[in-house]
């Protein structure tokens, strides 16, 4: 079909301008400024080569943040996604109440992370939190543990604010599982395959791609996790629960060291590309599946 050039330009322009402003220009800025000494109070901006990267590789906070980010990505991609897939494999057989269970399990994913964070600040509260109250009720003594601020429990406690809520993974895998041709499963059943065999030998291979997709989503979500940590521990105690976005925010908002903050930004992008490629390779998720 033919189209007048002005319509073509007019229809594409808003999206292209948005892309330039919010993606392209900032992306160039983040790479370029990581090679400078740009700060809030600096008299000028000078090219400093890889000085920021050298500082990065000597910064113990950076290693802590990188380690936490990678561990959380790994936990999310493996354990969290497995939980969602496991639930989807139960629900696609349409047991009693499956729709209601799917809906209810989805609720924590619909509420904002800030709210979930505030809820868990209270759940883990040393005085009246659910956890300590339950422990007291069960008779394990008068416990006053501050779960989110205690060095021994902060990391697992923060992890619990997102780990169990796999509703998003569940509905995506479930939607794919429900779209699989029933007759194929029926044939296997007639041949005497048990439910477990059907799940393991037929369903999982058929769901491999979509599981890969949910893993990419999980990795990207964890790479950018900010709100839940900010609201609950703000990266503490010390830097124990800091990840890369929180480190970036800290450098940007308390040190006002823009160049160094953007160096951490480049690092987030690199970790992102690396983990996406890895997952895509191992699950053969092609681009058309996103």
């Amino acid at each position, binding site marked *: 079909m033919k189209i007048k050039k002005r319509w073509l330009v007019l*229809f594409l322009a808003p*999206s292209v301008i948005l892309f330039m*402003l919010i*993606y392209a220009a900032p992306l160039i800025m*983040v790479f370029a400024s990581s090679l400078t000494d740009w700060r809030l109070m600096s008299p000028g901006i000078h090219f400093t080569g890889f000085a920021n990267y050298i500082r990065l590789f000597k910064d113990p906070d950076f290693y802590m943040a990188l380690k936490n980010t990678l561990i959380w990505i790994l936990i999310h991609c493996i354990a969290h996604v497995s939980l969602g897939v496991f639930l989807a494999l139960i629900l696609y057989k349409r047991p009693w109440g499956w729709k209601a269970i799917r809906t209810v*399990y989805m609720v924590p994913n619909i*509420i904002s992370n800030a*709210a979930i964070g505030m809820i868990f600040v209270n759940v883990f509260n040393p005085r009246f939190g659910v956890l300590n109250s339950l422990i007291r009720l069960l008779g394990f003594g008068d416990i006053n543990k501050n779960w989110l601020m205690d060095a021994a429990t902060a990391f697992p406690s923060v992890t619990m604010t997102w780990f169990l809520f796999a509703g998003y993974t569940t509905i995506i895998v479930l939607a794919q599982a429900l779209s699989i041709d029933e007759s194929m499963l029926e044939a296997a059943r007639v041949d005497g395959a048990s439910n477990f065999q059907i799940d393991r030998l037929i369903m999982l291979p058929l769901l491999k791609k979509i599981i890969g997709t949910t893993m990419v989503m999980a990795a990207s979500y964890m790479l950018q996790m900010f709100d839940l940590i900010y609201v609950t521990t703000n990266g503490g105690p010390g830097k124990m629960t800091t990840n890369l976005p929180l480190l970036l925010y800290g450098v940007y908002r308390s040190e006002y060291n823009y160049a160094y*903050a953007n160096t951490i930004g480049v690092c987030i992008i690199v970790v992102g590309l690396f983990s996406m490629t890895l997952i895509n390779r191992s699950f053969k998720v092609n681009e058309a599946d*996103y």
Partner: protein
Amino acid sequence: MRTFKHLKTVEKLGFVAKYVFLLGCVCTALFPLVWVFMSSFKTNAEILSNGISLPSRFSFDGYTQALKISPILQYFFNSVVITSITTVVNVFFLAMAAYIFARYQFRGKNILYLLLSLSLVIPMTALLHPVYMTINALHLANKKSGLVLVYTALNLPMSLLILRGTFQSIPRSMEEAAVMDGAGFVRVFFQIMLPMAKSGLASAGVLTFLNCWNEFTFALVLTSSQSARTLPLSLSYFTSQFSFNYTAMFAAIVIAIIPSIVVFALFQEQIVRSLTAGAIKE
């Protein structure tokens, strides 16, 4: 039909284990919410003496206090304005672009599409400072319009993907018939294509709405006063605002999450369909 009684022991165990697991999932999702809801009716003394006791009486004192202490309604209003404008603008602009990509050929089309969809893999939190600089340069920092601009862009790749797919699935004969009747390009788009792409527009709209409504990081960086701050941000101030008035704090959390739950309850089928639309090809 076989009933529970006729199952073998192993199958019975499996059946029980399955429902224990399902019950566990439901409790995980609901228990924290129910606890917060329950606590919002307890007095401060009741909360402090036993965290998991039931409220002795139902009073809405916490709610009236919460609304007095925290400007939660102002934040709520900001969120409604920002989210609705973003959703409309995003879906409209991206529908225009997606239609061109779905139907017309032009030089550089593939590269342009690749570039736009590549934005899906850029971790946006890496760009906090440059995005702030851009918004500041446009004099939109600490304004609702600044957040609208950023949020419209954040949902660009997903909406483009969904809407292009929707337009591609509409048969070409529809437009061709209209063109034969003398309808111009703009009329074809507005009167034929947009109405036919309703499902895609709804999916892209719901996704954009949810993402904006819950967005935190950019709201934190791009706003500095009450006039532009959104509901998720207001939650992060609760600890200091309510200091030791726990009843009011629990009530404030309930007020902040009720809209999401009501909307989800009303439109759950559409929301579930939208959330899977980007990930699954039918």
